[in-house]
């Protein structure tokens, strides 16, 4: 079975380490916050200018001055810091954020990512995504492996306008966990019940398949 959104978030959460500053994008990446492993502490960075994002507010705590990068009302956890957008992107571009998780339309074997613009469709903008991919050394891209019509999103070369060039080295799809190195995808893990053959078939870019590809396991 392909991974659910929640399972994808769970799998990404295993990459979190104690003491990490983490920026989570909108969509599946946001769900990662629900699966932070017990016994470790991470600080969530929200690029509008908040380090140490907490949970959503109760009705009593609701405050229009307290939002996250998705413009949702949030709280700050104890030990949080709030600052300007310039300061926030200094952290991001300066490589101070330990892990960035974001979604994409396409990723290619050279680590290029396209995530903000589909020509001919309404273009709303890149927000902070271009700064995030340019600044982070450690990025996990979450996406479905193929479109609804079965077309691969892991390509030899992105077809859509790029968000960043040569900046992605890890991808989690609903079918597999892969790394990108020296111009090729490397299959590291597969979703439970998904065959290596199916992943090969749905990966258009160059793919290295090791002899043993472990299956992911989930508690729930």
């Amino acid at each position, binding site marked *: 079975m392909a991974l659910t959104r929640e399972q994808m978030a769970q799998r990404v959460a295993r990459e979190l380490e104690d003491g990490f500053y983490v920026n989570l994008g909108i969509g599946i990446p946001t769900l990662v916050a629900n699966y932070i492993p017990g016994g470790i502490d991470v600080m969530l960075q929200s690029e509008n200018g908040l380090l140490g994002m907490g949970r959503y507010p109760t009705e009593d705590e609701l405050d229009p001055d*307290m939002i996250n990068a998705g413009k949702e009302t949030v709280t700050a956890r104890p030990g949080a810091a709030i600052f300007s957008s310039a300061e926030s992107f200094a952290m991001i571009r300066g490589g101070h954020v330990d892990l960035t998780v974001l979604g994409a339309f396409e990723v290619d074997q050279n680590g290029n990512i396209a995530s903000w613009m589909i020509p001919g469709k309404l273009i709303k*903008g890149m927000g902070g995504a271009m700064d995030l991919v340019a600044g982070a050394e450690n990025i996990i891209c979450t996406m479905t492996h193929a479109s609804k019509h079965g077309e691969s999103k892991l390509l030899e070369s992105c077809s859509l306008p790029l968000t960043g060039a040569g900046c992605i080295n890890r991808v989690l799809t609903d079918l597999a966990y892969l790394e990108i190195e020296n111009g090729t995808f490397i299959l590291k893990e597969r979703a439970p019940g998904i065959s290596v053959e199916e992943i090969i078939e749905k990966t258009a870019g160059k793919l290295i398949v090791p002899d043993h590809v472990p299956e992911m396991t989930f508690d729930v």
Partner: protein
Amino acid sequence: MAGFDKRVYSYEDAMDGIESGMTVIAGGFGLCGIPENLIAEIKRRRVKDLTVYSNNCGVDGFGLGLLLEDRQISRIFASYVGENALFERQMLNDEIEVVLTPQGTLAEKMRAGGAGIPAFYTATGYGTPIGEGKEVREFNGRHYILEESVVGDFAIVKGWKADRYGNVVYRDTAQNFNPMAATAGRITVVEVEEIVEPGELKPDQIHTPGIYVDRIIQGTFEKRIEKRTVHQG
């Protein structure tokens, strides 16, 4: 003493001197920390052909969305737009020129502009449509594009508290783009929730020192919430 007293007492005085064709830099992220009354005053004055630098363009009927109703904005530099139907329509009809600008680059354009730095190199956007036509340089094996900074004819800013000298503090994430915007206006106007006596704000807690600020006005704010998300249970 009056030389440092930046207070004005009407929004008409606050935006005195704004004219058609000017460049306006606005603080705010989404609807959070936007100078909502200064924007409303720009609407009332019906000035046209404005170039606006702002992360977003408000929503229908509120924030910068108000300035779309009479087509007062001809060009906007923003990182994320189109949350409003009117904006979408004007963008699709080429009635407004949209220069999509990465969020960090937009913030740095304001910061650098206010700091007297005319341009800066950033890796953001290299190899993407944003980098096309821009100067590229390599530093330590990485590619960077040259981005120009901005100084506006006006900067419009929303603070929390200020004193009459124009020292400003912001509240929570309503800070966002406001401190950079405040540095980057030839005329910087700050509207705040409360004007306090000099000395009430701790000098080492000031976000925007008064030297950047030309006018201060106390207002009342609607503070609309764009996405109301609450914790269940």
